[in-house]
């Protein structure tokens, strides 16, 4: 049954091709259902492969399924092949599962949009690229998917491209990602140069038998990490993710929370045999970048007023946790958090989308309030998502975050400290968001009066006549399903005994026993868990007393510098727009003068020489005849001079 792995990406590809051929000839809901069916088919095939894999023994769970040779070049060839192992199938399960739910949700969310068909075409193309990224059995195929998801991300961020701000956000995402892609490509060149192959399993074989210098592996890991920093929105390349919220909310949920942004983490885990060969400082750097990003983004999320921006910075922060786990060698914990995060963050984004939908496009938290009774399903599921991300047991987020924090403590208590402050902040800003949206008294009724002084108001219509309403079933059903998953998601990896660590055991064929093992006693683990709980409780407590009971002045937390993301974005823009731009212009000038000059100069020399030489071709037959005659005489003289005695 594992042989059916090719069906997983085939379904979305088929959906994409069908939709692009049908174009505008189908009516609104049909294209959405077609796309959703394609995703559901993909999910079903993933389930079949998953069950087939469960029936196998643990060591037989890694198979390569080759479709055809893609690039044969002498001894070297790249195949279109799928690597079906527990890691890729786990990724596929939540990509197709969450993807199907988000497709279903989009049918309701995109209702009435003029480009309904185009949206689902892109969405299916994205799913296909993402599955190719995950399933590819070599780095080049992964790169193909990597670029594919990047392109789809661009297309979907600037989906409503008639607004220049959206188009700019799309470009920003694309260009920032190119920096990361550069790292990926350099890593790929290095791997090909040192290993002579791009296939994962071959690379790992060579790594096991040959001695590869530690500096080489370190450099490869660092370059792959640059790729991951770009794709998984880590500091300093996270800049594109908050802007990516310009896209439709289902896109934010699918691409910029659940799936695409985790591909950097996936890549690092996929190459874990190289990771363990790299020097310790490189993995330490990865852990610190992850922890730093987690804290940095969480602090920014505290003061955001846009409901989606809060979630965007929260995503950056949670991705920081995953990168931290990867840096600590806790691959299972990273995947575990990736899965639970996919559940609860998709839930939160879809909930936010439902709120935005119900509020006719209003995204400002300050214009919400008291929506709980008007949107009971959205509110209920959103609250479950809040408890999950904040880390309240027994919701899924608690288990995955706790495991990462334990590994962080084991590596370096300072990392743990950063992690636990982030956990506190996470609990705080999520509490703030939930209370501002669903609790308190409604603020959207009188919001029309001060709409004039808000420069950032792009809602267009007067907020005064908003009628908040619950969303249709296509939107609430995914919310309920994801809420259920957010509650029970932790069951796949419970820390109590080795038999409840199901995910760790399941991922063993892909992690090759490279995982770091905890050297902590169970009492230490209990203390750490209790400390995490305390931090979460403090965060939620401060949140409630500030925003619900209003005992603490909210201005203490909502500093302008936090709202402006520590001015990092604007500083980068300034540097890139001023001195950076000039530096690039100088480089461009160098390119034009020196590089192009050399190329053009060669052409000019040939041209000038030809201009002189062409005068000999005067078109007169007798001149040519004379040339032939002189040549013949010349040859005669030459022969005679050689033969005379």
């Amino acid at each position: 049954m594992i042989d059916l792995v090719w069906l997983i990406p085939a379904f979305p590809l088929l959906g994409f091709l069908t939709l692009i051929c049908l174009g505008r000839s189908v009516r609104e809901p049909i294209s959405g259902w077609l796309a959703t069916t394609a995703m559901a088919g993909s999910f079903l095939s993933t389930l079949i492969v998953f069950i087939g894999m469960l029936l196998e023994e643990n060591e037989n769970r890694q198979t390569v399924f080759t479709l055809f040779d893609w690039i044969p070049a002498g001894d070297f060839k790249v195949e279109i092949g799928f690597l079906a192992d527990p890691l890729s199938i786990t990724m596929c399960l939540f990509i197709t599962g969450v993807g199907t739910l988000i497709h279903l949700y989009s049918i309701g969310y995109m209702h009435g949009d003029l480009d309904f068909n185009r949206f689902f075409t892109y969405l299916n193309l994205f799913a296909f690229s993402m599955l190719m990224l995950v399933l590819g059995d070599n780095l080049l195929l992964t790169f193909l998917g990597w670029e594919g998801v990047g392109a789809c991300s661009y297309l979907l961020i600037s989906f409503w491209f008639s607004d220049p701000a959206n188009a700019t956000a799309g470009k920003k995402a694309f260009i920032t990602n190119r920096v990361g892609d550069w790292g990926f490509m350099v890593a790929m060149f290095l791997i090909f140069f040192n290993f002579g192959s791009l296939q994962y399993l071959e690379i790992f074989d060579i790594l096991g038998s040959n001695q590869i210098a530690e500096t080489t592996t370190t450099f490869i890991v660092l370059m792959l990490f640059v790729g991951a920093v770009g794709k998984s929105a880590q500091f300093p390349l996270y800049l594109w993710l908050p802007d990516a919220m310009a896209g439709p909310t289902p896109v934010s949920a699918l691409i910029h929370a659940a799936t695409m942004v985790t591909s950097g983490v996936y890549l690092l885990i996929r190459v874990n045999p190289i990771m363990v060969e790299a020097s310790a400082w490189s993995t330490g750097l990865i852990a610190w970048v992850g922890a730093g990003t987690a804290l940095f983004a969480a602090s920014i999320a505290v003061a955001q007023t846009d409901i989606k921006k809060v979630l965007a910075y929260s995503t950056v922060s949670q991705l920081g946790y995953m990168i931290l786990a990867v840096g600590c060698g806790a691959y299972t914990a990273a995947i575990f958090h990736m899965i639970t995060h996919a559940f609860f963050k998709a839930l939160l984004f879809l909930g936010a989308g439902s709120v935005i939908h119900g509020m006719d496009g209003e995204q400002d938290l300050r214009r919400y309030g008291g929506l709980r009774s008007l949107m009971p399903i959205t509110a209920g599921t959103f609250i479950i998502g809040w408890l999950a991300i904040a880390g309240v047991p027994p919701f899924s987020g608690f288990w995955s975050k706790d495991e990462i924090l334990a590994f962080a403590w084991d590596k370096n208590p300072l990392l743990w400290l950063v992690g636990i402050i982030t956990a506190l902040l996470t609990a705080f800003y999520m509490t703030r968001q939930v209370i501002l949206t669903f609790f308190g008294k409604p603020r959207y009724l009188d919001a029309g009066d001060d709409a004039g002084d808000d420069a950032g108001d792009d809602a267009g219509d007067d907020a005064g006549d908003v009628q908040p309403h619950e969303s249709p079933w296509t939107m609430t059903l995914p919310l309920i399903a994801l809420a259920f998953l957010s509650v029970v998601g932790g069951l796949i990896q419970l820390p109590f005994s080795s038999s409840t660590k199901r995910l760790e055991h399941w991922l063993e064929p892909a992690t090759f026993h490279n995982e770091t093992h905890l050297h902590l006693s169970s009492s230490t683990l209990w203390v750490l868990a209790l400390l995490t709980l305390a931090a979460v409780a403090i965060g939620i407590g401060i949140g409630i007393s500030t925003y619900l009971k209003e005992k603490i002045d909210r201005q203490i937390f909502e500093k302008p510098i936090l709202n402006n993301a520590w001015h990092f974005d604007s500083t980068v823009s300034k540097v890139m727009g001023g001195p950076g731009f000039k530096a690039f212009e100088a480089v461009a000038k160098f390119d034009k003068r020196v590089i192009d000059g050399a190329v053009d100069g060669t052409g000019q020399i040939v041209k000038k020489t030809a201009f002189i030489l062409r005068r000999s071709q005067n078109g007169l037959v007798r001149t040519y005849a004379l040339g032939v005659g002189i040549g013949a005489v010349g040859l005669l003289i030459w022969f005679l001079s050689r033969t005379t005695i």
Partner: protein
Amino acid sequence: MIITTTWYLLLAAVLFSIGTTGLLVRRNPLIMFMCIELMLNAVNITFVSIGSHLNDLGGQLAVFFVLVVAAAEVVVGLALVVAIMRRRSRTNADDLKILGG
């Protein structure tokens, strides 16, 4: 007086030189063709004379090939001359230099 092979070769050389000079100095395409024929036949004489000198039939054989090629060349050449004559009143090889650089 015995006419040796040298005489034939001298005759061929003289004919060849006349042909070459004619080709270079005349402007009329027809005359130029005749000059080329002269040069070809000069070569034919050398073939035959050296063939008989060495008692080898190959010399005479080569002449047949030269004749056939010469005939074909004249057919093409005359066709070109006719085509040119239709467009221009007079034929002067020096006027036909549109392919010049």
